[in-house]
């Protein structure tokens, strides 16, 4: 018995060492960046691996003020909130109708959305650029949010459709007998029942919108209207020639913090969403 436990302990520790090794590979680059973000330029340039003499918060101030990361941050917050809102407003009613009614064309529409799941926005970024340019929508964060929302219609409809179809119809029928209108039932009965599905979609798409790169790259050309991934990429590009490394590292951490917070709060929903049929990019 004792020997058995010893063997199991040994196996556990071998495993642990392997897992810790990979943990270091996954975590160390982040920590290295975090440490660099509180160093002065000279400290970074003389030895990027030494610990800083003191914490240099001014890198963050510089990133926010001089490197415009503050403005980009707010732009991104606006885009994420608006696009998630738009997505829900358009997708919940559509998914509900597609799940509950059979009518002429309902099959075709469902198939269309299924097919579109595989269409990555990168492929159509140039026709989208030309179209948005034609309606004078470039450099408009509201237009960008609408485009973001539409790009996630297929995934969101697909996920919600499955969710609503699995709900029992009893609640809706009861509400109907009580004289509820269709819209009333949708908002007061169906939406509350769909909360877990909605939460999952919100988590996944909000993360995606926060990080989106290709569309923001072509649809926003005005420096002040940039979203944070583009702003950061640009800051990185510029730093190759300029010298404010600290602000660049600080900018990177600024982009990461909201993601980390949502990740810690909503990991369960994220994991569920991916096992439902994930998206990325």
């Amino acid at each position: 018995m004792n020997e058995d436990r010893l063997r199991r302990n040994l196996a556990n520790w071998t495993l642990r060492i392997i897992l810790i090794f990979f943990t270091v590979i996954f975590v160390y680059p982040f920590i290295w960046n975090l440490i660099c973000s509180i160093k002065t330029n000279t400290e970074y340039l003389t030895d990027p691996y030494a610990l800083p003499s003191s914490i240099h918060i001014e890198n963050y101030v510089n990133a926010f003020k001089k490197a415009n990361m503050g403005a980009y941050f707010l732009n991104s917050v606006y885009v994420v909130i608006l696009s998630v809102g738009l997505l829900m407003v358009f997708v919940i009613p559509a998914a509900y109708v597609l799940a509950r009614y059979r009518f002429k064309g309902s099959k075709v529409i469902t198939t269309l959305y299924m097919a579109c799941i595989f269409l990555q926005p990168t492929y159509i970024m140039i026709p989208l650029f030309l179209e948005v340019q034609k309606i004078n929508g470039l450099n408009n964060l509201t237009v960008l949010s609408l485009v973001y929302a539409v790009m996630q219609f297929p995934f969101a409809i697909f996920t919600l459709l499955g969710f609503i179809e699995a709900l029992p119809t009893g609640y809706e029928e009861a509400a109907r007998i009580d004289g509820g209108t269709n819209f009333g039932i949708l908002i007061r009965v169906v939406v509350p029942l769909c909360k877990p599905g909605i939460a999952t979609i919100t988590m996944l798409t909000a993360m995606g919108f926060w990080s989106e790169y290709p569309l923001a790259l072509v649809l926003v050309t005005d420096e002040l209207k940039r979203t944070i991934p583009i702003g950061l990429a640009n800051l990185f590009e510029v730093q190759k020639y300029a010298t404010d490394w600290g602000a660049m590292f600080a900018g990177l951490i600024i982009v990461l913090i909201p993601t980390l917070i949502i990740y810690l709060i909503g990991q369960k929903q994220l994991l569920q969403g991916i096992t439902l049929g994930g998206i990325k990019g």
Partner: protein
Amino acid sequence: MKKKPTLFIAVCLIPTLLLTIGLMVIPMCNAVYLSFTDSTALSTAQTRQFIGLENYIYMFKDKSFIQALGNTMKLLLVVPVVTLFFSLIFAFLLTQSRIREKGFYRSVFFFPSVISLTVVGIIWSFVFNPTKGILNHILAFLKLENLQHAWLGESKTALWCVAAALIWQAAGYYMVMYIASIDGISEEVYEAAAIDGAGAFQKFKCITVPLLRNTIGITYVLALSGTINLSFTLSNVMTAGGPNGASSVLLQYMYTQGMRNANYGYSMSIAMFTLLMAIILAVISRKVTHNNEG
């Protein structure tokens, strides 16, 4: 269903549908159409010419395109297989072990796949930085200075730096899918195997992999499409396709042709070629995994 509330259905569906058509279907049709024209930033709807397959023929005489195609192929051969290999190993280790803190490892491995690809690109640029980079620093520490490279600056290594970043950010994502599938395998199967004296490796080879064949097939298709798509952002951020196109990939060349050179027609033929290639690869790999099943 009794009476259909036509008005309600229309109000719920038509705005969503119109937006989908306007911002997805029409751009897609435009992409196909433009790929058969000589459209540029200077041409208008009147002056642009329909030139049939000329763009598609020109592609194969264009050295930069061939280079981008070759680079994409190299990534497609290596990245999905290596990523899924690590994902499977992680998933297997985390589901089979009785370690208390395994939830922690899962969170850590999964995290890189939810962060911005721009951040991934920048972080890995610093790993591969020739003078300050983590990799060269480790090599120096191990007294392996002769293995040091300029990594992103050398045409031989630049593409593989992009590949490393791709694998690093995607492994945890597929791991999560595998964990869900392995949780679906009955505990008893593993217990029975343990009683018959199967070790961890045998369990992995004889139970996990065969029972996950279908999931592996699906994730392989996702990883192929992900590699094509995500390599655009990483290559753009890390190397901008350089040095001399050594790390350019198809969608990035499409972007260069479309946005930098404003050759919309040619750019879209590259996009359509890439999309077609992605679809064909997906169909083939689905066929292969399905056949093996039966």
